């Protein structure tokens, strides 16, 4: 693999052991995937933040990183959700010990210069790369969004390789950074128009399961707003390893693929019934649930608005938690959405989410959500049963 003089210096430890460690990791990756060289990255997003997920070994690893006195070179480096809302953690019922460990992790990230955005939607929190930019993003739902919807280029980075890229400013040049790997290789003809975010997420979940490592090209979808695209990608990236998709007449690279390229791709057709079945398989059959969790991936301002308006003049009869990024929260608060949701008895939380926060102590048996990604992970990460419904169905059922 070709390295510039500067990159060789980093590797050889001329700038310290911390930088050398990061470069070693990226060179190993580059060699495994036969990259010819490194390229500079303009933006990074780092996952692996919750103490619940990375535990003591992860905390020690990050601390050792921070001790090496490294700083991120890439200014636009954002962080994934942690295990707690930094302000409202008491209302989440989290144990003090957890809060203390989580705080140590956040301190380690702060020390290396990562912005503590604590969100899985960094593109709604000031980290929005341009089409064609090379970036190193982890967080599977964000990776697929930045590739597909924003048209920037990243591989499916792990939290650690994204951090190494933030510190060195480099990523190995391979995989989804190359034109040839961004071509669609399965054409999915969608025979229905999704009518809500669950159908969009369910479509992704189904296709990710059938074609776990492909680049799908969706046709027939018609209009999809950004929230539905976010759900589509989150589904694709949780049942499978999909990290790039195209939507006809919509996503930035879709128009690049002429008839020939698509003619060579495998064909697949999806009916609404197929998606319904995939969502049903993820969802508990019984109607009883103890809580509604929304915001996986983190809700946008529009989604918070919809929840707020729906709840005007209503009271919720069960626990309702809505997760978002702090920057969207601040806007939503200014516009009165947070007030409306909390007046109705709900709680709007930032910096964390239902999947990465320890919720075992809440005594929940079954939760209802609009997210296929959350439905995929929650039974194993938080040992709860999950019911999947559209956002309005979720809210109607408890208010």
């Amino acid at each position: 693999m070709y390295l510039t003089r500067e990159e060789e210096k980093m590797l050889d430890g001329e700038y310290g052991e911390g930088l050398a460690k990061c470069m070693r990791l990226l060179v190993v990756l580059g060699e495994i995937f036969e990259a010819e060289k490194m390229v500079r990255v303009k933006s990074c997003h780092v996952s692996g933040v919750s103490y619940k997920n990375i535990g003591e070994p992860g905390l020690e690893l990050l601390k050792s990183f921070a001790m090496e006195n490294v700083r991120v070179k890439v200014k636009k480096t954002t962080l994934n959700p942690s295990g707690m809302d930094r302000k409202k953690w008491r209302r989440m019922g989290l144990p003090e010990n957890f809060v203390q460990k989580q705080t140590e992790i956040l301190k380690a990230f702060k020390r290396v210069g990562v912005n503590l955005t604590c969100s899985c939607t960094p593109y709604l929190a000031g980290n929005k790369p341009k089409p064609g930019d090379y970036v190193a993003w982890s967080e599977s739902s964000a990776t697929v969004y930045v590739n597909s919807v924003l048209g920037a280029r990243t591989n499916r980075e792990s939290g650690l390789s994204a951090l190494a890229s933030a510190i060195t400013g480099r990523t190995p040049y391979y995989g989804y950074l190359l034109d040839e790997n961004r071509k669609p290789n399965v054409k999915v003809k969608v025979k229905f128009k999704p009518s809500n975010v669950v159908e969009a997420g369910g479509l992704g979940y189904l296709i990710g399961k059938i074609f776990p490592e492909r680049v799908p090209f969706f046709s027939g979808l018609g209009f999809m707003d950004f929230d539905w695209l976010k759900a589509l990608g989150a589904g694709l990236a949780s049942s499978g390893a999909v990290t790039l998709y195209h939507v006809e007449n919509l996503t930035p690279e879709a128009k690049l693929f002429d008839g020939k390229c698509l003619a060579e791709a495998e064909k697949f057709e999806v009916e609404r019934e197929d998606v319904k079945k995939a969502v049903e398989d993820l969802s508990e059959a019984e109607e009883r649930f103890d809580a509604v969790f929304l915001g996986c991936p983190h809700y946008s301002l529009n989604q918070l608005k919809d929840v707020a308006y729906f709840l005007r003049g209503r009271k919720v009869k069960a626990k309702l938690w809505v997760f978002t990024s702090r920057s969207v929260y601040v806007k939503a608060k200014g516009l009165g959405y947070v007030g409306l949701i909390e007046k109705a008895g709900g709680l709007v939380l930032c910096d964390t989410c239902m999947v990465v926060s320890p919720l075992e102590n809440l005594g929940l048996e079954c939760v209802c959500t609009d997210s296929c990604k959350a439905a995929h992970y929650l039974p194993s990460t938080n040992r709860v049963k999950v019911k999947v419904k559209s956002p309005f169905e979720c809210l109607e059922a408890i208010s």
Partner: protein
Amino acid sequence: MGFLRLKGRSLVKGEVEGEALVTSQPISFFGGVNPKTGFVVEKNHELYGEKVTGKILVFPYGKGSSVGSYVLYAMARYGTAPLAIINLKTDPIIAVGCALANIPLIDRLDKNPLETIKTGDKVKVFLDGWVEVEG
């Protein structure tokens, strides 16, 4: 009973011997495997309820969460990690996890490992990417 030699790319080098655990389905270590116990906990996975600890784990590639590398690293620290991983074609999240945790990793074997290696086979992994299978 049969004996088979396969040649692959040795990505994280190591020489180990153990029993194979094989699945044709991709794995997400985050949410898919409990790092404290080593059991597969993803509800609809072929390996649900199986323990990966000390096994030569054979699967196509990683899927899902980008936190998988941390989970592999934690498993190595807790002593619940697989002995080695054999992938059809590895992916960055598995590769970084194995490199960091020093779990031997081999991919791109000359014969499809998902078809030639069976759960329960005795598998020996060598430094240079050779794999011996006795089943």
